[in-house]
């Protein structure tokens, strides 16, 4: 019985996610679901991203956290429209939360909507939010074992970002092994090495985003 209820809940989530997806895609807006562990550097990467891209395009950010508006406060300084969603202990965002947040954002005028999910490598992978792409940030300090231990999130993500590569000399992390594991779990996935702190590799990431925004616009024509 319980199992049936869970499936219904997810079915409902997927329906709402699909309607969000179709609504924003029709307006040519690129929607990204940004995933990763707590402390992997999702918000820092987003800050560095906004510093560059907010001058070129209109970006809205939905920040998902259990509690506080700490992330939204950081993002608000970088020229993006931002709204904080608190899950009050919930381990992931769900599509109805996004639907509600969108009613408070002038999303029609945006080029890109970034949804930063709750820091967690497990649960958020299962809930579509209406995104066109999931991107997972894996910081190298988390270790090489993570892709094989948390395969679903990497199977779902079109791009994995290896963050904090400035720390490579101080760890045993192998970028080569990470790329091998991620592309084994998800053939066709892209992997980028980045340091949000030093700016290394940031240009490739920004170019990837620009290409997605362009693709979303062209698809809507």
């Amino acid at each position, binding site marked *: 019985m319980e199992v049936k209820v869970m499936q219904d809940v997810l079915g409902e989530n997927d329906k709402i996610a699909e309607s969000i997806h179709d609504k924003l895609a029709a307006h040519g807006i690129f929607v990204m679901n940004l995933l990763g562990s707590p402390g992997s550097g999702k918000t820092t990467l987003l800050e560095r991203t906004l510093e560059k891209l907010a001058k070129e395009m209109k970006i809205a950010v939905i920040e998902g956290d259990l509690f506080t508006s700490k992330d939204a406060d950081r993002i608000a300084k970088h020229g993006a429209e931002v709204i904080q969603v608190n899950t009050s202990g919930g*381990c992931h965002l769900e599509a109805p939360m996004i639907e509600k947040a969108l009613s408070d954002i002038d999303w029609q005028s945006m080029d890109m909507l970034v949804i930063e999910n709750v820091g967690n490598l497990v649960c958020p992978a299962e809930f579509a939010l209406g995104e066109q792409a999931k991107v997972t940030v894996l910081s190298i300090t988390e270790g090489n074992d993570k892709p094989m231990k948390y395969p679903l999130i990497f199977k779902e993500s079109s791009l994995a970002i290896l963050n904090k590569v400035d720390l490579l000399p101080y760890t045993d992390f192998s970028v080569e092994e990470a790329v091998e594991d991620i592309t*084994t779990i998800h053939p066709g996935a892209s992997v980028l090495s980045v340091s949000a702190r030093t700016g290394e590799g940031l240009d490739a990431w920004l170019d990837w985003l620009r290409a997605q925004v362009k693709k979303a616009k062209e698809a809507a024509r």
Partner: protein
Amino acid sequence: MCKECGCGQNNGNTRLQFITEGYTEESAKTVEKALLGLPGVMYVHIHWHEGETTIDYNPSKTKMTEIIKVFSDNGLEAGL
């Protein structure tokens, strides 16, 4: 599904164990990689000496025939 909190999809994954004849160390690696790349395949473990192949996968995302094809593409025959 996250088993801790119960959120997400009822984990539709099934764990199957095949006995596969004729692995070499190399072909076991090739098969493991090919299986892991299939949609819904979350875990693969191969004891190549014994031919024991454990696969955790979601039957709604990958069909059994696609799994069997990975074996046959590598010149192997697998039985449950």
